């Protein structure tokens, strides 16, 4: 700690010249939210929120986003593992492909899902023919659309965590006779827990806000596929103040859930 004299700032602290930028960033993010709060129709808010359509859309949003997150964790962690740890040829190409849903406009994602899993899709056709299963316009389609756009967030976070994890700890556990599964459960997963938690939170948040792919692939029907973002979009055409009220609810619920999870998962490390 040679540099820790009284005059020199703590290493790692933000250089003062950059402080205004941080403040500007915060302002930029918060101002639109302030606008929503300022314009919210507080008097009609309770009425707007207890409309059966609103509650139904909120419930559907929460259920679908959570299911999509589960799908992402189950599929995404193994994929992240492959990307981080395997010596598969073409791994960097694979990594680039994983980020495709991030750059794809969500509506295009929805059309892409049609071409793959729709009734006329390359896989969907057989699902229909062999099992009589058609995905589009069902709640399952909402989960599929949300998982499609949210998966990269989880994969990238977990992959980063796996690369950063100290492999010597895993080697040590293996040397001491731990089985492969035991190492995974008791050493690797705890090591990457913060990355997994961050990825899960991002994934859930992205799924909750999903609009384009959902309205394209799953359509919009009250109770089965009309999630909160779609309800807000339609409300905007009917009554903009109702749309603001609904947006606020979605915002409050998601902030509450995310803050709660963050507290629990990242309480010490963040």
């Amino acid at each position, binding site marked *: 700690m040679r540099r820790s004299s009284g005059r020199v700032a703590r290493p790692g602290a933000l250089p003062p010249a950059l402080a205004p930028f941080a403040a500007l960033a915060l302002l930029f993010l918060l101002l639109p939210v302030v606008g929503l709060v300022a314009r919210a129709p507080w008097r009609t808010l309770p009425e707007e929120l207890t409309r059966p359509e609103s509650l139904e859309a909120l419930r559907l949003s929460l259920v679908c986003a959570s299911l999509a997150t589960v799908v992402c964790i189950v599929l995404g962690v193994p994929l992240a593992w492959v990307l981080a740890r395997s010596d598969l040829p073409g791994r960097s190409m694979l990594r680039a492909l994983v980020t495709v849903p991030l750059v794809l406009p969500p509506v295009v994602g929805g059309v892409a899902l049609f071409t793959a899993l729709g009734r006329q899709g390359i896989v969907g056709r057989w699902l229909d023919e062999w099992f009589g299963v058609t995905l589009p316009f069902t709640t399952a389609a909402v989960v599929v659309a949300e998982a499609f756009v949210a998966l990269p967030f989880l994969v990238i976070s977990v992959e980063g965590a796996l690369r950063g994890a100290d492999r010597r700890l895993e080697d040590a556990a293996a040397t001491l006779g731990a089985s492969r599964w035991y190492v995974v459960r008791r050493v690797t997963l705890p090591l990457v827990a913060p990355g997994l938690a961050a990825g899960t939170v991002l994934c859930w948040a992205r799924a909750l806000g999903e609009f384009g792919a959902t309205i394209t692939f799953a359509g*919009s029907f009250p109770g089965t596929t009309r999630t909160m973002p779609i309800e807000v979009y339609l409300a905007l055409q009917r009554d903009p103040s109702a749309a603001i009220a609904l947006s606020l609810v979605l915002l409050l619920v998601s902030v509450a859930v995310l803050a709660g999870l963050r507290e629990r998962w990242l309480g010490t490390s963040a």
Partner: protein
Amino acid sequence: MRRSPAALVLALALAGCGGDDGSAATASATGEPSSGAASARSLGDVTVLAASSLTEAFTTLGEQLEADHPGTTVRFSFAASSELATQITQGAPADVFASASPATMEQVVDAGAVAGQPKVFVRNRLQIAVPAGNPAGVKGIEDFGRQDLTIALCAPEVPCGDAAARAFEAVGVTAQPDTLEADVKAVLSKVILGEVDAAMVYRTDVRAAGDKVDGLDFPESADAVNDYPIAELGDAPNPAGAKAFVDLVRSATGLAVLAEAGFEQP
């Protein structure tokens, strides 16, 4: 708030597809002297917000105005009328608004955003749209009550959804839709993709989709006719351009292009 770019992408794609008949119509229309003032003066940028169902006809008319007045650029935003009405009342800078229903135009008038009186320039009739070849064997409007069919309709907030509701009421059918889309082009795209068995769209949309979609007329469509009003906007950045476009739309040339697209005279 994210807006669905789907409608726009599709509208552009369809405008491209329908380009053939469209330009043919323009060519035949420009053969005779245009009834609008054909001064070759540039009108600058004209911004037109119009109902999705007007995509093909208005694109043709925009090209016509640009040809009549070199240097003029007509910019369109096609979307659900109700969405456009919201944009206008929120201060979107535009010169002309053409809506698919008097009710949505009323919203804009009530907000004091219209200069003068809106005028009804065409009417549009609903038609049943099915994928080419009608694989599900849809026969008429009664089939919209069948649970086993996959059916797309416009949301009731949107003029085409409102018109469809009137038609079902006239027939006494309880429709069993699987999705209520945010605008008519989104409904049409589901038919083009073959993902729904039947949908209720405007006759003009079926025509614009060419041979990818078959249209079935039904007698009760007379109860589901929408009037289309057009208006110059009060805060138009380009009032002269707004007037020129509205005049063109309401001229004999304009009505011929609109009739070509399947619209009816008011």
